């Protein structure tokens, strides 16, 4: 049989596509470029996952030359995108030599080769004619890697196969991996490639390694409502607090905290406080590692404050001239009282929190130096805001 061999083509050619105007063509190109931008990171992610798989389970026991047989990308996105994916694959393979895949350059493999022998004349790529490659001396790679990426609905699917370049061209390994369009790209570093599963596990371990005990540090301001009569309300108190916070479970749906606080404004006041709180997560049954968590809390605190500006806590009547004179004569006012509070705590990134609360001081409910921000059976004389950090 000396005839020229050709691959059979049994279907009639498709209908010619309707001609597009310049404006339509430009719009189509714009849409294609936009899609390529959007899925580029997802395609890189799939390639990273492919190479991470080879890191975990290398295909070869020792470094083996492999020809990159071809990288194809979603139909409609053009060859520029294919070049990007090919470059990324090469970069990741070069930076991870323990995959044991060594990309080699084989120009005869990708070139179209015409081979005329006693049986036939064959026109095909070198990679499809291993016997011709042998004759050309192009024995640099004994395996060829093919990678295909395709957009299938909302999924980006990567397929890869490795073919041994012997006359039988057996496929020795194949792999299919899909990524949803709604999954964010992991943006992995090529030098320390990890699988998506390993990266997620490491992320969780890092968070959990902090243990059930947190050490919060808070800066807060307590502001006291102006009285409706002749009284003089105390100035806002600035508090620095720290202590311990414990969660009942990893979910941290319930947490409790005990904090010690100190407040000072020279020449005006100083104070100490001991505060206990119980927090309940309001946004779900378990804290989110990725989104803000909102807690509601109730708590109690005992305060001792002293200094000239703390006189309003001491006097259950309106501040008068006698009290001021006593203070000037060196009798530093000092007061101890308790408070109950309730509020909301918004925690962001498991590191920062912002809270607002109302506090009632039952012992001072008849003190004319205080008004009320709200009345729930008891007057809530104090409004507090806090910024917290967790370590």
């Amino acid at each position, binding site marked *: *049989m000396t*005839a*020229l*061999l*050709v*691959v*059979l*083509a*049994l*279907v*009639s*050619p*498709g*209908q010619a*596509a309707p001609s597009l105007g310049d404006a339509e063509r430009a719009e*189509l190109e714009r*849409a*294609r470029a936009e*899609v390529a931008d*959007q*899925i580029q990171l997802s395609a890189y992610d799939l390639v990273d996952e492919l190479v991470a798989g080879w890191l975990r389970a290398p295909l070869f026991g020792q470094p083996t030359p492999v020809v990159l047989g071809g990288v*194809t990308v*979603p*139909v*409609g996105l053009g060859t520029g995108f294919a070049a990007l994916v090919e470059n990324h694959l090469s970069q990741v393979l070069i930076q991870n030599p323990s995959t044991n895949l060594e990309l080699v350059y084989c120009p005869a493999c990708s070139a179209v080769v015409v081979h005329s022998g006693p049986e*036939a004349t*064959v026109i095909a790529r070198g990679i*499809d004619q291993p016997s011709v490659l042998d004759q050309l001396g192009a024995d640099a790679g004994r395996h060829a890697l*093919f990678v*295909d990426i*395709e*957009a*299938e*609905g*909302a*999924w*980006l*699917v990567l*397929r890869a*196969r490795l*073919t041994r370049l012997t006359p*039988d*061209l*057996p*496929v020795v390994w*194949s*792999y*299919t991996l*899909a990524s*949803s*369009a*709604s999954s964010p790209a992991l943006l992995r570093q090529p030098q320390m490639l990890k699988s998506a599963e390993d990266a997620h596990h490491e992320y969780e371990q890092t968070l959990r390694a902090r243990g059930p005990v947190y050490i919060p540090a808070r800066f807060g301001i307590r502001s006291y409502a102006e009285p409706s009569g002749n009284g003089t309300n105390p100035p806002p108190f600035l508090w620095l607090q720290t202590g311990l916070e414990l969660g009942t479970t990893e979910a941290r749906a319930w947490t409790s905290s005990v904090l010690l606080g100190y407040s000072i404004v020279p020449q005006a006041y100083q104070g100490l406080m001991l505060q206990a709180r119980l927090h309940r997560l309001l946004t*779900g*049954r378990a804290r*989110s590692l*990725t*989104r803000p968590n909102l807690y509601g809390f109730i708590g109690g605190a005992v305060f001792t404050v002293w200094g000239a500006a703390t006189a309003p806590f001491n006097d259950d009547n309106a501040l008068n001239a006698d009290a001021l004179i006593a203070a000037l004569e060196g009798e530093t006012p000092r007061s101890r009282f308790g408070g109950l509070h309730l509020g909301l705590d918004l925690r962001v990134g498991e590191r920062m929190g912002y809270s607002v609360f109302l506090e009632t001081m039952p012992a001072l409910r008849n003190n004319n130096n205080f008004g009320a921000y709200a009345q729930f059976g008891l007057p809530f004389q104090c409004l507090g805001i806090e910024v917290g950090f967790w370590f």
Partner: protein
Amino acid sequence: MIGLYSLLFLFRDDPAPGLRHSKAESRRLDCTWLDDHAASARRPGQVTTAPPSGDSVERSVMLCAERLLAPGVRSEGDEAVLRELQALTNGIAASASSRFPDLANSTWLVEAFHPSALVSAKLIFAAKNALSAWGMAVSDRLPTLAVGDAGVLTSLAPLSAYPAACARFAASGSLRPTDALLTLVHLDSRETILHAGICVNGAWSWLQ
């Protein structure tokens, strides 16, 4: 009360065309029904699952995602095949495996005939991976025919041409006795399904 009930339907996140989504927007979505645990695994933190102790609420979740390629970026015919590429090729591989168990030790060759050469290449790649996943030995070899054979075969109707080509593959030795050739065929440009046939020892049989 009726107004409140209407508001419930107006503001729920329903992917169907309506007041919140146009038909074009809805057509761009790819939606799947899942149970709550599968949906929670797919979208952690976004789907509330039933508590371990159970409750009286029956949950099912429809997850939707926008298709990667907007309508018009590629032809409707290509899109119909490529959108379901994994399911199509996996179904064909499963069917071949179950209907021809005696070919489990054969070497499978794959070819595809689609009006678009790019789509044909995608079909071949996906089918080879699907066959490999079913544990079959696959090769990148392709059977070839002489020019004279090709000239005769292209003049035949497709339904006759494929069995005839199969016989010529075997007769010419291009397809060995230990080979099984899976051919994916798009017979009519109006179709959105694929046909598949298997050629073994010169005998052709349609798989679907």
